[in-house]
């Protein structure tokens, strides 16, 4: 059965191929079925593999070599797939959530043109992500990495007739490219120093050859981190993500929940050995994560666009994952990735339903009172918001966030400060999440809205809502080891965090975190349901206005980058108006043209002249051979 592994990435890519080649001629129903079905089949296959996994235990690894591309000396890139507990979790989430998003898209996109193009890109997106996750060497991983980047570009700019969408797509592409370049350099560095890019072998060699904290390990890890930061939209490369909302809502769901942004988390988890060899880099991850989660959370608090709220929320939640990675709580990061995938997909799809009901209105302050018109959407959205806010005990988000917070406190690399940032973040998260819920679904109805969408769109919402709750089961303690099930499951791949102090005041931490979540909810209730005037008044004050603007623009990173990079770059281009570098190429082109012309003169079409050429060649050849 493990032979079926190749089907997982193959199915969506096959779907992409079919849709690209024949998509425009197929009826919409067939297009949707192909697009959704291929991902669904991948999901089925991954579940089958997961079932096999459960029986065999946690040290279980499947590798499948598909083919060897070429072999020149030591350089013989093989294309093989590698499945272990870590990639299995990723694959399951990607295919299942991906499938639900595809299913949802059938309804969401039904009135759009470019239907088959949309599904083709989506399939390629999922396929690339699966290649990334299943790659057993960093070259294939990089291939998937770039494929994901390409698809995000294509999908963010899906409605390309509006040039703003094109700009957003380009921005996403360019900014992630900064990280990608660092990653590529990192790969070269690893290859030249360790002589392989096979991930498992690489990790072994790195451990054997590089002492912990050595300079080379730090540089390599830092380069990989830069790549991860770009893809996962962490400080300081986070600015592309809010603009990426220009794409259709299912795309946002796919980018934020199942693909793309989690690639960075996966990369770090996959190469965690390297990062443990570079403690300064690991600390940087934790600090970046903590800072990102706070800054992005505050920005989310003031956004008016429903999707931008969720976008900043994603940045913030990925910040949690980075925080977990930074303190060595690898499996906690994965756990949070999983729960986040469920509830964030749910929230995006719910937001999509709202947007569709409001005729593509994004501004939350023009919505309101949708609770009664859209009961299914409301209840599922409520579950999503609760999970995002980590409301105690019933939501899965609570368990994953709690795990992160606990380890941020107690792990060897953790500290009170990191923990405090996490708790503050939890409060802010809860605040903006419920703000969103209250503003959209409570209060007076401001405009006419359609009712709940059809079954193909509500079904994914319900399933995702169920998953958002049920994923908490993964936190049940394993009877044998006393660790949580997810930790146990991943223990073959990801080591447990080193605990600094066994006497962690667990109950106390739990209490504080719960208070933060509930406190945020109550604050939102006060500000947006009971006393909405007060919130408005706060913004009207002078200080309030400038803070609001700062937060609203995402801490002004775009402005800073404009000043810091775009400005000087434009200045340079102005200086280089005559393009002295291009002159070289133009000169080359000019000389090529001249030589072309001169050589063209030899093609006279006269047979005697051609024979003359042979004679001249003979004289030269004999001359060189005999007289030289």
């Amino acid at each position, binding site marked *: 059965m493990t032979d079926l592994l190749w089907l997982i990435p193959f199915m969506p890519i096959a779907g992409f191929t079919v849709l690209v080649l024949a998509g425009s001629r197929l009826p919409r129903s067939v297009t949707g079925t192909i697009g959704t079905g291929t991902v669904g089949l991948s999901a089925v296959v991954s579940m089958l593999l997961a079932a096999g996994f459960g029986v065999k235990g946690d040290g279980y690894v499947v590798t499948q070599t598909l083919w060897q591309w070429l072999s020149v000396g030591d350089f013989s890139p093989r294309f093989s797939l590698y499945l272990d507990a870590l990639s299995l979790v990723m694959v399951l989430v990607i295919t299942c959530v991906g499938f639900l998003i595809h299913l949802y898209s059938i309804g969401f996109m039904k009135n759009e043109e470019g239907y088959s193009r949309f599904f083709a890109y989506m399939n390629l997106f999922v396929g690339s992500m699966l290649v990334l996750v299943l790659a057993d060497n960093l070259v294939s991983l990089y291939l998937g990495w770039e494929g994901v980047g390409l698809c995000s570009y294509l999908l963010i700019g899906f409605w390309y007739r509006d040039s703003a969408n094109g700009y957003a797509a380009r921005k996403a592409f360019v900014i992630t490219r900064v990280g990608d370049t660092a990653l590529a350099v990192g790969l070269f560095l690893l290859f030249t120093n360790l002589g392989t890019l096979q991930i498992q072998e690489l990790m072994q060699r790195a451990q054997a050859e590089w002492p912990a904290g050595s300079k080379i390990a730090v540089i390599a890890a830092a380069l990989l981190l830069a790549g991860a930061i770009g893809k996962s939209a962490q400080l300081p490369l986070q600015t592309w993500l809010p603009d990426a909302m220009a794409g259709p809502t299912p795309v946002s769901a796919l980018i934020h929940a199942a693909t793309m942004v989690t690639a960075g988390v996966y990369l770090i988890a996959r190469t965690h050995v390297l990062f443990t060899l570079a403690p300064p880099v690991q600390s940087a991850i934790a600090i970046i994560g903590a800072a990102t989660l706070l800054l992005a959370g505050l920005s989310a608090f003031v956004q008016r666009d429903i999707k931008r709220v969720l976008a900043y929320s994603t940045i913030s939640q990925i910040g949690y994952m980075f925080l977990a990675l930074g303190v060595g709580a690898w499996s906690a990061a994965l756990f949070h990735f999983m729960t986040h995938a469920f509830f964030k997909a749910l929230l995006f799809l719910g937001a999509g339903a709202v947007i569709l009901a409001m005729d593509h209105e994004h501004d939350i302050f023009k919505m309101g009172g949708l609770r009664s018109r859209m009961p299914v959407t409301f209840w599922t959205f409520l579950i999503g918001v609760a999970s995002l806010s980590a409301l105690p005990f019933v939501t899965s988000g609570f368990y994953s966030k709690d795990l992160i917070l606990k380890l941020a406190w107690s792990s060897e690399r953790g500290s009170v400060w990191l923990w405090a940032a996490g708790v503050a973040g939890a409060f802010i998260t809860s605040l903006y999440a419920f703000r969103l819920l209250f503003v959209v679904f409570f209060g007076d109805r401001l405009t006419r809205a359609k009712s709940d969408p059809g079954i193909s769109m509500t079904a994914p919402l319900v399933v995702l809502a169920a998953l958002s709750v049920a994923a908490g089961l993964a936190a049940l303690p394993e009877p044998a080891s006393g660790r949580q099930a997810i930790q146990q499951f991943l223990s073959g791949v990801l080591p447990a965090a080193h605990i600094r102090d066994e006497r962690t005041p667990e109950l106390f931490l739990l209490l504080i975190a719960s208070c933060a979540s509930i406190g945020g909810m109550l604050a939102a209730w006060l500000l947006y349901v009971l006393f909405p005037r007060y919130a408005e008044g706060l913004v009207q004050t002078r200080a309030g206005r400038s803070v609001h603007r700062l937060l609203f623009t995402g801490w002004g990173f775009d402005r800073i980058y404009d000043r810091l990079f775009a400005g000087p770059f434009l200045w340079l281009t102005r200086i280089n108006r005559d393009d002295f570098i291009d002159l070289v190429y133009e000169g080359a082109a000019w000389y090529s043209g001249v030589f072309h012309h001169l050589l063209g003169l030899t093609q006279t079409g006269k047979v*005697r002249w051609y024979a*003359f050429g042979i*004679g*001249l060649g*003979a*004289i030269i050849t*004999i*001359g060189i051979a*005999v007289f030289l």
Partner: protein
Amino acid sequence: MNTPFVIASVVAVVSTLMVITRTNVVHALLYLIVSLLSVSLVFFLLGAPFIAALEIIIYAGAIMVLFVFVVMMLNLGPQSKTQERMWLIPEVWTGPAVLAVILLGELVYIFASTGGITTSGKTVPAGDVGFALFGPYLLGVELASMLLLAGIVGAYHLGRRGNDDEQKEER
């Protein structure tokens, strides 16, 4: 130095020179036959009587007849001769002649620098050639027959007075 060889060589060179400078095709063909005959004499002197005979029978006999045949078919009149004269002005032949002289110079230099080779002076009779042809060169003979087949088919197709397109040409 072998006198008959020298004489045959001089005749060969002179007649060949005449071939490439004549304006009348038939005259040139006659000179070419002389040239071939003198080369045939050289073959005889080299101890290759069979080849000497083949040179006359096939080259001077068959192939030259082919040329004559075509010339007759084309029925080239005197105006082609004036045309030839016009085509054969010094500007046309100096360049090639210089090139040819350089090539010749290179080759002669090579032969001169090799130095001191003499022939075995041994006659290789027709029988030996025959044994070689039907011994180690058996496949070669078969290949040669395929070569002739290709020549025949090609010449047949190209030389056929077509029924359809020739009329098109006349129109």
